């Protein structure tokens, strides 16, 4: 199941779209157009992008509050995602969710959830529903490194192991849970060991800045999960260039660490790979760069021109 040449190029374009979208969100947040919390995915694009190509369209994906990258990679229209950022009625959650609560049930994207670890048993349950109804879909649950310390993680993994639920757990280890380094928060530095406690196979510390490594790992994990053997855990070593959320003073890491990581940028690495392997010309990539820029401009225009929710919307959707 190797990526086709078209997919490889498309993947570059997708990562660039996510990057440019996030940069624009930072601008709009500073300008006061986006409110609340804003958690950017810049630096982690390869993980969600690899997931897109490794999963089938009828597979499920669910994540935490750093969810823009997953939403865009899953194919949610950028216009609607941007509209949600601006709290517009055309947003993916009709303006009721915001940055942390994007979702698209038709694309099997079960949402961004904002209580750390709270979505992990949901993933188990989503997978249970497929198993119960003899469907062979798998569920991918992404989480940050910080989530591996919370009770939800352990209860969800244990239940998934006991019931052999088709879940691929993905720890996006960006090395800080808010401002606390993994080494200061987790008793074991090697987070995948926590999967071993539940007899669950895992892939330890995969290079999350390497799209191909992530893709191949996901393909392997998903194949295992789809075979009915149970869950699988992947730890993706990644890094966020921006703070935990906007307004993070970043006292917990030195500037040179961030700069060093930027030199290992997943998009630049992928571009270099495509060029070296003769899979793309520079002009091809530039075209995709421009398309990403244009998509973001279009999305902002769409979002700005969209109406805010009607006052009556306050009371809709509380109950079915």
């Amino acid at each position, binding site marked *: 199941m190797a990526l086709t040449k078209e997919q490889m190029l498309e993947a570059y374009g997708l990562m660039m779209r996510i990057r440019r979208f996030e940069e624009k969100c930072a601008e709009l947040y500073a300008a006061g157009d986006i409110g609340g919390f804003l958690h950017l995915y810049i630096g982690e694009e390869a993980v969600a992008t690899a997931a897109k190509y490794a999963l089938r369209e009828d597979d*499920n994906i669910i994540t935490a509050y750093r969810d823009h990258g997953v939403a865009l990679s899953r194919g949610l229209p950028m216009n609607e995602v941007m509209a949600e950022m601006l709290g517009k009625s055309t*947003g*993916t*959650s*009709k*303006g*009721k*969710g915001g940055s942390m*609560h994007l*979702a*698209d*049930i038709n694309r099997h994207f*079960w*949402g961004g*959830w904002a*209580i750390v670890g*709270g*979505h*992990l*048993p*949901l*993933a*188990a*349950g*989503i*997978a*249970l*529903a*497929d198993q*119960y*109804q003899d469907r062979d879909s798998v569920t991918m649950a992404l989480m940050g490194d910080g989530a591996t310390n919370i*009770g*939800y993680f352990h*209860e*969800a993994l*244990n*239940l998934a192991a*006991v*019931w052999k639920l088709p879940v691929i757990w993905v720890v996006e280890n960006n090395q800080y849970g808010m401002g606390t380094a993994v080494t200061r928060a987790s008793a074991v530095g090697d987070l995948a060991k926590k999967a071993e406690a539940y007899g669950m196979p895992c892939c330890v510390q995969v290079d999350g800045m390497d799209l191909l490594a992530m893709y191949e790992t996901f393909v392997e994990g998903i194949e295992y999960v789809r075979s009915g053997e149970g869950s699988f855990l992947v730890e993706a070593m990644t890094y966020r260039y921006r703070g935990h959320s906007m307004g993070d003073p970043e006292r917990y890491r030195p500037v040179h660490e961030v700069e060093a990581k930027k030199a290992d940028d997943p998009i630049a690495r992928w571009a270099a790979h495509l060029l070296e392997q003769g899979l793309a010309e520079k002009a091809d990539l530039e075209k995709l760069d421009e398309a990403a820029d244009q998509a973001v401009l279009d999305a902002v225009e769409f979002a700005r021109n969209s109406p805010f929710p009607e006052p009556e919307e306050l009371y*809709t*959707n*509380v*109950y*079915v």
Partner: protein
Amino acid sequence: MSMSSAVEADATTGESEMKTFREAISEALWEEMERDEKIFIMGEEVGVWGGTYAVTRGFYDHFGEKRVRDTPISEMAIVGAATGAAMNGLRPIAEIMTINFAFLALDAIVNAAAKAHYMFGGQFTVPLVIRTTTGGGRQLGATHSHAPEPIFAHFPGLYVIAPSTPADAKGLLKAAIRNDNPVLFVEHSTLYQTRGEVPVGDYVIPLGKSDVKRVGSDVTIVSYAKMVDISLQAADKLAKEGISAEVVDLRSLRPLDTGPVLESFKKTNRCVVVEENWALYGVGAEVAARIQEEAFDWMDAPIKRVSQADVPLPYSRDLEQSALPNPDKVVMAVKEIL
């Protein structure tokens, strides 16, 4: 005990049988599971053990382990996974052994189940029933005896149902299972052995409707679950002294149907709320607020509350009993405002 008006409005064969509250719950579950394959039960000891209150005895053998799922002791995962399964097309009935353990699942109930529909603009629905037991009086100590269901009734997005009779238990549970919203279904553990006429067959009571359990003219006693029985006993005692009490059973704490309460209050002009929860921020506080907002001109006396003493429940029998509402306390409260 006078018969619930809703019992007369059944869409069943018209027959009824004397059953315990436990049997009524069990029958509702059984019939619903026979009706719809997507309904399944998950929780601690629901399967091989047959349920810690024997409600699901025989279910495991009949429906099999796929549909009667024993879980680890893992409340966060029970409610969280049931919520996910509900979002993805199933109709889970998750059992939490006592509502006191539901605190462990509070986040899953409140932040996931109750908010999933709203937070994503209506994309997800959570047709989930969380069955749990509540209530004191059995010397189970401070961590297994409380009746904190009003806490859960605080949150929009949830239904909180608490039946008082076997017939209501059957009809309301069936409605809860068929509802597309998350429902916390609270069963008072000292009611399981109580008996009453239960309609045979497909008996469903709409959720969110209060019910007059006894008609009277001098005072309105509002209560729910086990406290309805306490209130009816008090009404019997009052009747012997020539005082006519009307007893309204809320049956549902959320949504709260104040219609029958207000209607009764406009007739009696006096109200006592009997609640097993603590008074502070409790059901009585809410009912009193609604009455003064909507029936101020009919108010002839302060609204009284008979509640659990404001302490964690002790073990020692008499001490525990002294902390709980009883018929005499209700009689006293009524006399204070007559």
